[in-house]
């Protein structure tokens, strides 16, 4: 029998954007088992909801994570609106879609850069982030902040984007789309990227479904499951299909995310075309009623996120629970790591798009 050693991976590692710890049980160069360990960045945000006004809690919900911050704020607000039966005006729904898709583009470009850095392609990493900076400029122009948008509130959105501004944004977005094509073409066609990623971290269709994988992990195995199809916000009125690949390996997940960037651009153009001229918010009166519950599911760039809120009749919520996509993807990642080489471990860990600050709010 070959000699077994245990190699610790993380919590500090150059490829990890956030700290997670894995104990890799190795036989020579092959990983036999991976045991995860989290808790380095637990801030107790769910407990904070019991002592903070539910409208102010939006600011805390947005700061659960820096990369997926807008959709956390949107999900929280939608869940509270569901508890209190508030009807959000149409323009607010379309604006949330526009900002949500911009958030998705910036997150995927960030991930493409990190993935390139993980297998050593530093110039591709720098160029991906250069394109992302242009998008963050548009975000700052429309919301006031580059990373924390601060534009969702219970009852609607806080700022409006006027129609002339939307037209000028469309031109800038088309320019950014052209620049992104240069980046994603390298991922799709370059031989060195393919040699490094194809065939590693393979997850079969049934395994992914049974282990509870979500987001691009699931769609890369051939299952067309996208939570935006539930039709929340204005997604029910736009025409689009989930992006699906069939190989189930790291390369397929990379292609799914690259193609979702263009799907997101297309959704923004559709939303800008169809946006109506109504109010942007509705007045919030009272508190979430006692005993009311809401399960709100949204699609973050990393997968399906579930918000469970329980009202208590006062201005403090009884329970605020977020089940983030990376939490659900830990089990498939641990299974995908079995049998891989040590040099492939960073690629596979990054391929679930780990957002550990979301995982351990």
């Amino acid at each position, binding site marked *: 029998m070959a000699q077994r050693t245990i190699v610790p991976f993380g919590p500090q590692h150059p490829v990890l954007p956030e700290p997670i710890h894995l104990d890799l049980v190795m036989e020579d160069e092959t990983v036999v088992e991976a045991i995860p360990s989290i808790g380095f960045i637990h801030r107790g945000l769910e407990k904070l909801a019991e002592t903070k006004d539910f409208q102010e809690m939006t600011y*805390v919900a947005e700061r659960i994570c820096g990369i997926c911050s807008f959709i956390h704020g949107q999900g929280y607000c939608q869940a509270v609106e569901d508890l209190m039966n508030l009807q959000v005006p149409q323009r607010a729904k379309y604006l949330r879609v526009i900002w949500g898709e911009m958030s998705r583009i910036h997150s995927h470009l960030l991930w493409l850069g990190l993935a390139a850095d993980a297998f050593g392609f530093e*110039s591709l990493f720098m160029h991906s982030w250069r394109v992302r900076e242009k998008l963050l400029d548009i975000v700052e122009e*429309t919301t*006031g902040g580059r990373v924390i948008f*601060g534009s969702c509130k219970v009852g609607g959105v*806080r700022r409006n984007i006027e129609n002339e501004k939307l037209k000028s944004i469309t031109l800038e977005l088309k320019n950014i789309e052209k620049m992104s094509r240069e980046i994603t073409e390298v991922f799709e066609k*370059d*031989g060195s990227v393919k040699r490094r990623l194809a065939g590693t971290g393979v997850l079969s269709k049934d395994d992914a479904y049974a282990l509870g994988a979500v987001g691009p992990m699931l769609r890369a195995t051939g299952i067309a499951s996208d939570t935006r199809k539930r039709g929340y916000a204005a997604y029910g009125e736009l025409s689009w299909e989930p992006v699906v690949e069939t190989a189930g390996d790291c390369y397929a997940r990379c292609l799914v995310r690259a193609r979702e960037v263009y799907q997101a651009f297309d959704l923004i153009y559709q939303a800008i075309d169809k946006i109506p001229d109504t109010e942007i918010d509705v007045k919030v009166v009272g508190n979430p009623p006692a005993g009311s519950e809401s399960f709100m599911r949204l699609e973050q760039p990393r997968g399906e996120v579930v918000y469970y809120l329980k009202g208590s009749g006062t201005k403090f919520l009884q329970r605020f629970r977020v089940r983030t996509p990376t939490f659900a993807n830990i089990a498939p990642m641990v299974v995908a790591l079995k049998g891989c080489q040590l040099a492939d471990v960073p690629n596979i860990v990054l391929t679930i798009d780990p957002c550990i600050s979301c995982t351990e709010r």
Partner: protein
Amino acid sequence: MGSFGIFKMVTGWALSKPATRLYPFVKREPYAGTRGSIEIDIQKCTFCTLCQKKCPTEAILVKRQEKIWEIDRLRCISCNACVDACPKNCLRMLTGYSPSVTARTVDSFAQEQLKSAAEASKTAQ
């Protein structure tokens, strides 16, 4: 594309102007709506304490009796809630970020009592 598909993009950028700015010699102009730091026109303030109630991080302290308005710059998250809540529109969001500090201090603004100065000049006459 073979093995060196990024060649065209990289040489293009190597031969053209850099994408980065030479900060601090060239500074970036922020956008009009950028949320930077809070400024108060203290003379218009009526000390109603609405901004203190709406602040999610408890960064604002309003002292009604002494007519002093204080903000802890390091607690402020530039969320704009106080600007939206102020009924007298004396709070404004500036586009520049508050500068780095070496100690935790609180910025204090005291309202000048112009009324008492006017009364003092009246009694003097």
